[in-house]
């Protein structure tokens, strides 16, 4: 697994993170350098989150595919907790929620984990069809019909975004990218994917700050602009193309995937902002004091994961 390309990719990212941490620490110690203190703090916070992501992912990948699947399962579980804590639920939803947390979430990851063994495609439809139908029926059975569709839709949205979508990230490890060889290419692809999501988010932000003029939806997020979106997506595409050697695709393929990642990631950010606005919350982390806000970190990842999986599988069928 530790071949040249993988080392180059991971090593490159570690070097970048170290450099960025150095910059962050310098800015923190010398506040007269002219930058906004809150921005510096938020930058350092984001850096810490990236270090955490990097080390946790690396550790899981070193241990094996199963460990990575379990890791993402735990992240999904936690993100779902935050999501459902935010959305108001009624007593009638309680039982359905129990099954969502303790049956459908582990089941989805079990199905993903079994991808190498079984050729069934159940993981593609289990949640969007069967779990969704179950939720509708179970909530109906509990007898509370007030705002029925609204309540069930909330639970369904949570399950879809936090569990179903995110599960396609570790699913990348089970694709047949380099038949016969070890899973270095899969590892690199997953790493590349997560890296591109973070870079794309950062680029959208930077472009918006630099040349942003026309806000996309002022009611949802005043900092997301068309210039930021287009500039960020374009630069992410170029960056992804430059990293084509880390992916199983040729340069134009890597560019295409990066563009999709960027667009979907942006959509994810907008969607979660909309949900938070509706609830009058700024960040999922402040919901209940002390929790880190996992959902804030992975919203773009969740939206982008399925398309990366499906496109990769289209080009690399078993």
């Amino acid at each position, binding site marked *: 697994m530790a071949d040249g390309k993988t080392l180059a990719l991971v090593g490159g990212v570690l070097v970048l993170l170290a450099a960025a941490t150095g910059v962050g620490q310098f800015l923190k110690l010398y506040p007269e350098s002219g930058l906004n203190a809150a921005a510096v703090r938020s930058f350092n916070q984001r850096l810490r989150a990236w270090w955490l992501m990097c080390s946790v992912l690396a550790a899981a990948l070193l241990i094996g595919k199963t460990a990575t699947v379990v890791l993402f399962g735990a992240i999904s*579980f936690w993100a779902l*907790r*935050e999501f*459902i*804590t935010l959305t108001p*639920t009624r*007593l009638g939803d*309680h*039982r359905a*929620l*129990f099954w969502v*947390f303790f049956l459908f979430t582990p089941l989805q990851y079990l199905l993903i984990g079994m991808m190498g063994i079984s050729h069934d495609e159940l993981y593609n439809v289990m949640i969007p069809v069967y779990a969704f139908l179950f939720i509708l029926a179970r909530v109906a059975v509990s007898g509370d019909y007030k705002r029925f569709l609204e309540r069930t839709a909330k639970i369904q949205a949570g399950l879809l975004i936090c569990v179903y979508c995110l599960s396609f990230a570790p699913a990348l490890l089970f694709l047949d990218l380099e038949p016969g060889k070890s899973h270095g290419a899969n590892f690199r692809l997953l790493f590349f994917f997560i890296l591109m999501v973070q870079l794309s988010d950062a680029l959208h932000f930077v472009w918006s700050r630099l040349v942003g003029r026309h806000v996309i939806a002022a009611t949802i997020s005043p900092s997301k602009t068309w210039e930021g979106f287009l500039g960020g997506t374009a630069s992410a595409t170029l960056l992804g193309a430059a990293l084509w050697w880390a992916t199983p695709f040729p340069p134009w393929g890597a560019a295409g995937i990066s563009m999709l990642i960027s667009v979907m990631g942006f959509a994810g950010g907008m969607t979660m902002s909309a949900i938070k606005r509706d609830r009058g919350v700024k960040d999922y982390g402040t*919901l*209940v*004091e*002390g*929790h880190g806000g996992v959902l804030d970190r992975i919203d773009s990842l969740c939206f982008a994961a399925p398309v990366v999986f499906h496109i990769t599988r289209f080009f690399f069928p078993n």
Partner: protein
Amino acid sequence: MTATLLAALAKLLSGASVRWIDCQPDTCQRVYFANHTSHLDALVVWAALPHEVRMVTRPVAAKDYWEGGRIRKYMATKVFDALLIDRKEIKVHQSPVDLMIREIGETKSLIVFPEGSRSTDAGVIGEFKSGLYYLSKKRPDLELVPVHIDNLNRVLPRGEFLPVPLLSCISFGAPMWLESGEPKADFLLRAREAVRRLKEV
């Protein structure tokens, strides 16, 4: 050993984050009084305390519920060392307050729920019963620490058996005491307000 494990499990399942606002954990004798929202309350507040404090703290629990089964009885007596109060039979010569004072001696702390029973209306704290007042009157040295339990009623609502692992928050506030000459009604209102205020901080 079981206690530590159970506490960890309780914190994990209830997704509880713990905040100490204007108060530090201490093994001195305290009465932690909280709003009552679900059957998990005593367990989660107990689990939220740091290990040394947990060792000297006894949650007050209803005898009729916690002696109702072998596992529950074992947990209540051996694991959390609960102080079981008989809600059905209130004896005049052995009131719950006297029982509590006798049981805590000079070392133990208590977790009490002055509302009496779980509030049905989520968000509204019910009226406090007078136990806290009499307890404080007989032992004015005890520090009264308000505790707010947030969102636990959605984790295990009334009448439900299966928990849903949402995120909840336990907030410990600044200690208070019964002022000399303070009337009961005023004191209970002040205590209730102390708990309610923790929600907004």
